[in-house]
């Protein structure tokens, strides 16, 4: 794809990301940090693409597969740990 177009998408998304977070109560700082951290795990998508272009058994394939394992840990683990944290806030909310 045209790299200027990609750059355009990047800039717009960065501005959107900046606007998305406004007044976050401090109790949500960590869940928010860990949830956005989980989104970084989407890099697994890039690793799947690089894994696919290599013949199995080559160094590039092995690197990509390690990347897939690491990124999936980041993504699945990140979402689950965030959900565990937020689950505790809910208990508290139920009492209100």
């Amino acid at each position, binding site marked *: *794809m045209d*790299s200027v177009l*990609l750059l355009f998408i*990047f800039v717009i*998304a*960065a501005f*959107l*990301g*900046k606007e*998305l*977070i406004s007044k*976050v109560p*401090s*109790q*949500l700082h*960590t*869940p*928010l940090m*860990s*949830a*956005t*951290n989980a*989104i*970084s*795990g*989407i*890099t*697994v*998508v*890039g*690793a*799947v*693409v*690089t*894994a*696919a272009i*290599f013949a*199995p058994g*080559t160094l590039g*394939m092995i690197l990509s597969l390690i*990347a*897939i*394992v*690491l*990124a999936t*840990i*980041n*993504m*699945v*683990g990140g*979402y689950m*740990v965030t959900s*565990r944290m*937020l689950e*505790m*806030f*809910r208990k*508290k*909310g139920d*009492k209100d």
Partner: protein
Amino acid sequence: MAINLAYIAACLLFILGIKKLNKPDTARQGNFLSSLGALVGVVAIFFENEVVQSWNNAHSWLHNGILWVVVAMLIGAIIGAIWSKVVKMTGMPELVALYNGFGGLATAFVAISQFMYLYIVWAGRSEGGGPIVMFSIGITVFIGAIAFTGSMLAWGKLAEKVTGSAVVFPGQKAINLILVLGALAAIVVLVLPNVDPATKTTAVIALTAISLILGFTLVLPIGGGDMPVVISLINSLTGLAVAMAGFVVSNTMLIVSGALVGASGMILTLIMCKAMNRSIGNLLFSGFGAAATQSTKGPGAEPKAVSAEDAYMVLEAAQSVVFVPGYGMAVAQAQHVVKELAEKLEANGAEVNFAIHPVAGRMPGHMNVLLAEADIPYEQLKTMDEINPLLPTQDVAIIIGANDVVNPAAETDTSSPIYGMPIIKAHEVKTVFVLKRGKGRGFSGIENELFSMPNTLMIYGDAKATISSLSKEFSGD
């Protein structure tokens, strides 16, 4: 076409998810939407051309790239799931740091793999990458590798596997500067046309090594108490690396989600910094905690220590009690016994509140999570701004393993490294009990005047054991 629509759906879900994570009542929904977005994105990638071709080209199951990809994903998912289930609430910041480091390394690997494809597998058969792709590969490796070692060191500091205090040595800044310049030079070599593949390969290896060292040396001078902000900052960097990886493999979803994480993570980092009254530059370069020992004020009077039995006499008569929890409560896993003591105090007619400093513990919101785990009612958790005006009228403050967030030096001692940080003014309460493991200084290494104030009484020992014995006194045995 359908794949691009799926990418748009995934990005929209990420955006909605982050938006909803801003508010306590929609946060769980936000996390769910965001994870749904990730699922949509991961499923969509299996329909991309390169991936489908790899599937079709396989002449036996051993040569089936997709199969290996799915196996790798399952391994990752299982490890991630297990770690998330077994981690204790106190270990949360470490785990997030660990995950973050993995994300950074994975992203760097994606860029290195793409480089290998362009210059090793296709050497001589292709013209290599264009300047934008090569620049993106360079930046992705640079940031991804920094995020990896930086997170690993942050994890080590938080898990107390390495010293939590700031490590400063002469020439540190000069070394960092040289490393940054070296990395930039390597990136220039990558981008320049007419450089032979062997030189470019050397540049990638050098860049990887330099960046790995840099992640380590950048986090080294930062004290343990600042780690949550550092993790948040590195998280934002990982997001940027993901966006750059999107340029490397021409994937719009990676670009959008990476940019979202990068920008929102940066704003979140700034918000956290503000809560600690510190600037990013100050946090990264001042060596917080290391300078503390140079504070001009020597320790004043010797702190007075009392036993739990003596403390009970005071507590028994108290009409109002404020708990100020800190990291020590987390370490001692004392939140459940604290809840028990709070109930007994209430049964005894006292009004009980909890004063939560925004950065108490090892991550923002750490104390909220722990106290919520112990089922302490939401109304009793007061923010710093709510509780401070009430403190002069309170009878007893019980400080459980908190240190810097109640240090009056932040208000009075201009030479203190924490001067200017908003604190919970526990010293204004009539009687202050400080529960502490030992006589040493806290995690940040700063002397606390509060401990030697006339209205302060120290109760040394394990916080959980102390609280339990106070609780037992109330049971009237």
